[in-house]
């Protein structure tokens, strides 16, 4: 194996041992660190000139709920390097293949460990993380896809009327999202691109990228710092929610984003209103009522906690893919992106661009 075929990014990666998937994941308990390994294999099916791919990598920040252990990659590329969006610190493997490469392929292995995250938003502490004025301004500012003016500001103002603290405002927005973001069969338009268009269309249907962006946008418009966190589900849920975990080691389509808001005296608080709607829609027998015990429990739990059967990639918004000749700018980096011959590839078209992500447990 020569240098071109194999590059190793981290010695730490060698210190973990792979375990059978079920054995490693079934025994997980709350509060315990668990190790995972995900392998992302990307192939460009019909290369037309120079090809490129951008593979999201685990968040590098050390937190009490996730720790990166390292990345390896191998393939027939001409170059591969860890790149960052430069603004949010969203890291990715930027891969390029020469035009002569007939069957471009890269396989990226990432190892990390996680443990469940629980924050009581009512419990204030003198030691809590603080935000500087600059950070507060950053996390309350608009992005291209999350505007905070017009109908977004007006809606946020209505929802948070009479609420005083950051926690009260964020909780009102969370409950509003849970109660209002469903597809109204009478609604005949689709919002696109940003949360303002969703509100203007009156169509609040959507997946996590839409619903949690709505939470973040409404929080920011109400003056509460907030951010999305984009990632991937990697294991079944230990809380018996089939819809909130993965059912096999193949996690290719298990991308999921979550949200956080910042409360003074508390710090960053994890939330996930989109997953409450997912329980409503998908948890067997499906289409559960909002007062179904499983929905009620999820609704309570997902304001202040994340089950960490999930990997956090990054919190980047409006990400420009470095080195992209197509100049591709994406609202967020959660999926593998690719281009060939200067044209962006369709992530959903298996004839052009194929990738598979597999998850397994490892000793943490």
């Amino acid at each position, binding site marked *: 194996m020569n240098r071109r075929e194999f590059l190793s990014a981290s010695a730490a990666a060698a210190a973990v041992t792979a375990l059978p998937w079920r054995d490693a994941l079934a025994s997980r308990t709350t509060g315990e660190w668990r190790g995972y390994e995900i392998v992302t294999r990307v192939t460009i099916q019909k290369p037309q000139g120079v090809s490129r791919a951008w593979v999201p990598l685990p968040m590098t920040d050390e937190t009490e709920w996730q720790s990166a252990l390292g990345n390896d990659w191998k393939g027939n590329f001409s170059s591969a390097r860890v790149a960052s969006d430069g603004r949010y610190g969203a890291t990715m493997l930027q891969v390029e293949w020469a035009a002569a490469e007939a069957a471009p392929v890269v396989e990226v292995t990432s190892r990390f460990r996680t443990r469940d995250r629980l924050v009581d938003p009512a419990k204030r502490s003198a030691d809590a993380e603080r935000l500087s004025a600059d950070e507060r301004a950053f996390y309350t500012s608009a992005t291209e896809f999350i505007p905070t003016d017009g109908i977004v500001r007006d809606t946020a103002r209505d929802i948070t009327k009479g609420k005083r603290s950051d926690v009260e405002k964020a909780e009102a927005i969370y409950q509003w999202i849970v109660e*209002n973001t469903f597809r109204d069969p009478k609604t005949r*338009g689709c919002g696109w691109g940003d949360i303002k268009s969703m509100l203007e269309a009156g169509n609040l249907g959507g997946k996590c990228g839409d619903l949690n962006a709505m939470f973040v946008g409404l929080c920011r418009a109400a003056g509460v710092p907030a951010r999305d966190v984009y990632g991937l589900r990697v294991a079944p849920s230990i809380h018996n929610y089939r819809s909130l975990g993965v059912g096999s080691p193949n996690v290719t389509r298990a991308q999921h984003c979550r949200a956080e808001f910042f409360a003074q005296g508390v710090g960053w608080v994890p939330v996930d209103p989109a997953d409450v709607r997912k329980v409503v829609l998908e948890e067997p027998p499906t289409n559960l009522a909002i007062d179904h015990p499983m929905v009620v429990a999820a609704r309570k739990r997902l304001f202040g906690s994340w089950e960490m059967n999930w990997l956090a990639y990054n919190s980047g918004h409006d990400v420009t893919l470095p080195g992209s000749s197509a100049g591709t700018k994406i609202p967020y980096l959660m999926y593998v992106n690719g281009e060939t011959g200067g044209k962006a590839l369709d992530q959903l*078209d298996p004839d*052009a661009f194929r990738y598979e992500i597999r998850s397994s447990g490892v000793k943490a």
Partner: protein
Amino acid sequence: MLAVFVGAAGAQGLKPWTDGPTPALRLQDLAGKTHDLASLRGKVVLVNFWATWCEPCREEMPSMNRLRASLAGRPFEILAVNLGEPETRIERFLEKIPLDFPVLLDRDMARAKAWKARVLPASYLVGPDGRIRYSHLGDIDWSSSEVQQLVQRILPR
């Protein structure tokens, strides 16, 4: 709170346009041919912004085929502008729902922004003088007699 309701409608859903001059529209179709709205002066043009993932867009498209067929031989064109989707995905969609009019590619969605098409589908009826006469957000039955009569009224004599 969410006051904007985009309802399915007949011609009564078409709103007279009062929002200023017609933005430019010059884009390539799937075959690479460039279409320029400015070169269609003298015709009525229905400009429709859409995406394959937008259910109401999919629902109304067959009625656009019917409207075009009912006006065959008249100075009437439809330009369907797709919002930033890969060509392979659009081609697969057209295998299921063939369209009798060109699909233009708004790759960076700059045209949709310029036309203020914030909700899909978004449709604009452009008169023979190049001015937008009517607009509609949400789906509509383009083959209804009300819509046909309205289009007939703005066709050049």
